[in-house]
């Protein structure tokens, strides 16, 4: 129950976080459609049809190669697009209509397509609109638009749709009736905007001028005129309708127009918000920059502080070349590389051999090398440490009746799925044992643990912040937190290899490696323990210098050393291959 609640809270927090980001980080100065000039001429025919010409000049289209114009379509109306023009290279080009399944024309020389939706027609014009500006002229017919009643005829049309969500300026609408009539009998109404002019110019022409609209506003023109002006129009309803319309208009006029006020208020707020956002964004950028730099510095300081903590209170002991046998070859490999792997395993077997528990037998025949280990009888493994004991038990289990363990045969091939699984299990258990054993020897103090955990948390936080802040606030310096976060995390993650215990041993092991690489047969400065061939092979394998055995004094005969090197090489390749196959994915 608690975990479910936690998850729910996490999801809610994430959603709130993302939405809050979108509020102040994602705002931009201008977006969406902006119409800079909108001229409409409507010619009303006697039969009630409308012949409309719209010239739309966009200042922002939201796209480079198409523009969408929404045309109002009321119930019973039929809209037919007659022609569409677009301005290409200063020339008006008549666009060609694309119809269903027919895509023949050269699109960007000017084409358009028409989508009939429930209450609108979506006209999409394809052209080349430089810097997202363009001019489109649309001529279309609307049937069944004029409603004719007993006393009046009614023209009602939305020129800017309520859901359009754009900004339009300089809107001129001219409606021409089919014939002259008494000016007093023409009544023009304008809905959807708070500011706008309407004029009945003469007995035939009505003009509207609206300076601008904002999202949420719309432009609806409504004109009453004598029904005999459109005498060829079918009668919608023989009843008188004037009073109804006047009543409706009175209602509209007396309404609080709160939605329009709200739209203006929202637009003002939007503009204010954009300005505020820009300001905040600038501040956020400055803040994020400072924060990123400080956070990155704090990460680096944490590393320094942790390093100090690791060195604090520990007496510098001396771990010299002679002391190397105090660690096992497996531990040596773990210290040097942070992993056990093939070298750790093979080195571990030779470590056991040096302690007299097993004896290696190198078989070298043409194309048939073998590496077997024979169990030495009557050995008590009690004094071996955990991983060694486990490795010894593994050899015991896997050896044949005569007590021979053939390593190269034991390593499973990729198609031997069951053996691979078994090998994986054995290896993983042994690997965990090695690491636990190492942790026991190399225990962190409470304050070291505190700094490790701090480093882990800080590292993750810095890395995540580096990803999120750099993208969200578009701050370049925030990317600095990525490498720093990763560094802090990695340092803390591998802290056990940075303790005094580890550092001294790693240093000495590296010294040993260098010594072996540079040595020659006459060199007498090698530590005494290197005269033990098993220990020498074990450590050579662990530190990666098994190919130098032939140079190591009198420990091996040249011929023996070469063949041992060959066998070890083959064993390492096989082991490596097998381990990478079972452990990598």
């Amino acid at each position, binding site marked *: 129950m608690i975990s479910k609640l936690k998850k729910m809270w996490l999801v809610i927090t994430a959603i709130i976080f993302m939405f809050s980001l979108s509020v102040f980080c994602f705002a931009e100065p201008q977006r969406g459609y902006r119409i800079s000039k909108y001229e409409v001429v409507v010619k009303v025919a006697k039969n009630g049809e409308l012949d409309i010409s719209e010239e739309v000049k966009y200042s922002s289209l939201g796209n480079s190669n198409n523009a969408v114009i929404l045309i109002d379509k009321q119930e019973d109306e039929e809209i037919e697009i007659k022609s569409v023009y677009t301005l290409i290279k200063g020339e008006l080009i008549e666009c060609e209509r694309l119809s269903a399944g027919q895509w023949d024309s050269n699109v960007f020389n000017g084409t358009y397509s028409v989508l009939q939706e429930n209450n609108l027609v979506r006209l999409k014009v394809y052209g*080349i609109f430089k810097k997202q500006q363009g001019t489109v002229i649309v001529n279309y017919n609307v049937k069944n638009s004029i409603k004719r009643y007993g006393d009046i005829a009614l023209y009602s049309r939305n020129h800017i749709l309520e859901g359009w969500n754009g900004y339009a300026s300089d809107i001129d609408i001219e409606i021409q009736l089919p014939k002259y009539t008494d000016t007093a009998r023409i009544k023009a109404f304008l809905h959807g905007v708070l500011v706008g002019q309407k004029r009945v110019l003469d007995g035939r022409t009505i003009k509207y001028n609206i300076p601008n609209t904002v999202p949420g506003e719309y432009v609806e023109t409504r004109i009453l005129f004598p029904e005999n002006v459109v005498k060829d129009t079918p009668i919608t309803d023989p009843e008188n309708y004037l009073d109804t319309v006047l009543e409706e208009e009175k209602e509209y006029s007396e309404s609080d127009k709160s939605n329009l006020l709200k739209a203006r208020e929202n637009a003002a707020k939007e503009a204010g918000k954009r300005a505020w956002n820009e300001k905040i964004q600038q501040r956020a950028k400055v803040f994020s920059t400072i924060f990123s730099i400080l956070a990155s510095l704090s990460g680096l300081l944490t590393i320094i502080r942790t390093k100090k903590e690791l060195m604090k209170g520990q007496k510098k002991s001396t771990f010299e070349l002679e002391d190397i046998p105090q660690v096992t070859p497996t531990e040596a490999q773990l210290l040097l590389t942070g992993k056990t792997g093939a070298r750790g395993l093979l080195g571990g077997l030779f470590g056991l051999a040096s302690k007299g528990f097993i004896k290696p037998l190198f078989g070298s025949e043409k194309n048939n090398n073998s590496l077997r280990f024979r169990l030495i009888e009557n050995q008590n493994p009690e004094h071996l440490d955990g991983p060694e004991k486990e490795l010894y038990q593994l050899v015991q289990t896997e050896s044949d009746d005569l007590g021979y363990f053939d390593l190269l045969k034991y390593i499973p091939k990729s198609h031997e799925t069951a053996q691979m699984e078994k090998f994986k299990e054995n290896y993983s258990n042994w690997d965990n044992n090695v690491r636990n054993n190492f942790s026991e020897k190399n225990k962190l103090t409470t304050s070291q643990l505190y700094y490790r955990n701090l480093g*882990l948390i800080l590292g993750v936080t810095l890395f995540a912040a580096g990803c999120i802040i750099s993208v969200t606030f578009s701050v370049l310096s925030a990317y600095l937190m990525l490498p720093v976060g990763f560094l802090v995390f990695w340092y803390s993650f591998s802290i056990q290899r940075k303790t005094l215990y580890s550092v001294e041993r790693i240093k000495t092991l590296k010294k040993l490696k260098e010594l072996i690489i540079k040595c020659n047969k006459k060199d007498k400065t090698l530590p005494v323990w290197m005269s033990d061939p098993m220990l020498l092979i074990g450590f050579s394998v662990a530190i990666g210098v098994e190919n130098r055995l032939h140079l190591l004094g009198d420990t091996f005969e040249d011929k023996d050393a070469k063949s041992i090197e060959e066998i070890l090489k083959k064993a390492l390749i096989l082991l490596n291959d097998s381990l990478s196959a079972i*452990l990598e994915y």
Partner: protein
Amino acid sequence: MLENILWMLILMAFTAIVGVLVFKDKPKKIRFIALAELALIIRFIFIFVLYKNGTEYSGTDGLIYHQVAKDIAEQLKSGIPLWNINYEYTWYTVLMGIQYALFGVNRYAASFINSFIAILSGYYLSAIALDLNFKTKRSFLIGIIYMFIPSMFVWTTDTRKESLIFFFVIMIWYMSLKVIKDRQLSMIKQGLLIVSICVLIWLSTLLRIYLLYNLSGALLIFLILYYIKTKRKLPLVFCIVVMICSLVINFTTVRENMRDYHALSLDRSKSGDEDLDEEFGSIFKTIMEKDVASAVNGFLTKPHFDDVPYITDIAANTLAIIIVKTEMMLWYLCMIVSVFGIMHAFIRWDPYLIGVLAFIVSYGLINALISENVADTYYRYRAVITAPVMLFADYRLFFQKIKALMIGSSYHGEKL
């Protein structure tokens, strides 16, 4: 209509067959394949809606490619051999042209094929996840999410090259993993796979010129890291082959096509008012003028919630606006979760996922710099990295690891 129905039925049958072949040993594969079929059917329906009025819901590239493909079909029918075909814009039009020459001009059929390819991409994305030893449930979920992402329906149903690009990218990564992971492959099969990868890199370069650098660069990182980790010879050989192949492509295909390439959609037609040299110059000018941090923001996060209602193709369509906003919210969530997936990949020092990450980062950076600063353009170009990002979208493994490390004091670094 009968022809279209036949196309749809055949492709649905292929979807089922490929699904069974790819996931033959996996449990719950039937449910997964059924969902893939559903995704395909939805795409088919969407195609009919898309072309209902001869209009383009998703931009205009698809229409241009269709027209070029028709011309290519004519050339092929008139006896011009394939290698002498004259085509514009992208090699994808040649593929469409071949289809038109063989089966007749039918934009619906070309879109059906694109939809099918998108479903194949979903299959192989799941196959990658399975090969990475993700749980079966999680692997199938990744594929299903990919197939049902709303914007993917748009990008992969129209006659655009996107569907093929996504497929090639996913296939290159799938085959690379196969070469490295599947130890039972014979040398011949390994060789064939490596050659196929090189061919796909070349084809991807023909589709989007800079994909050569993203793909081969990321593959090199993967293979070198893998070699360092395991010392196997195979990744080294693979790496050298990819490197040689990339150099050849660079000095042949890229140089040849560079002049025709213009990612910024300032002018996409012959009738434009700028010639190509000017446009080429304008691309570099635009890149130099860009604010890198803002461009990366735009590429990864656009369309922002406030932009969505202003995307021309969905303006005033409330349902579409809600869908896009929801998708964007989930994308942001996916990116945040992926941060921890990325860290986990680093902790494991997983060469494959680090390689994939290199691809995501390099592709993101190039596109952030060259794409037009328009929400829907970023939206479409970003779709290529959607699938790879989903491989990282799991925070649990990372936190489990950290928790285990912090609670127990022992050191459990890498296992190999």
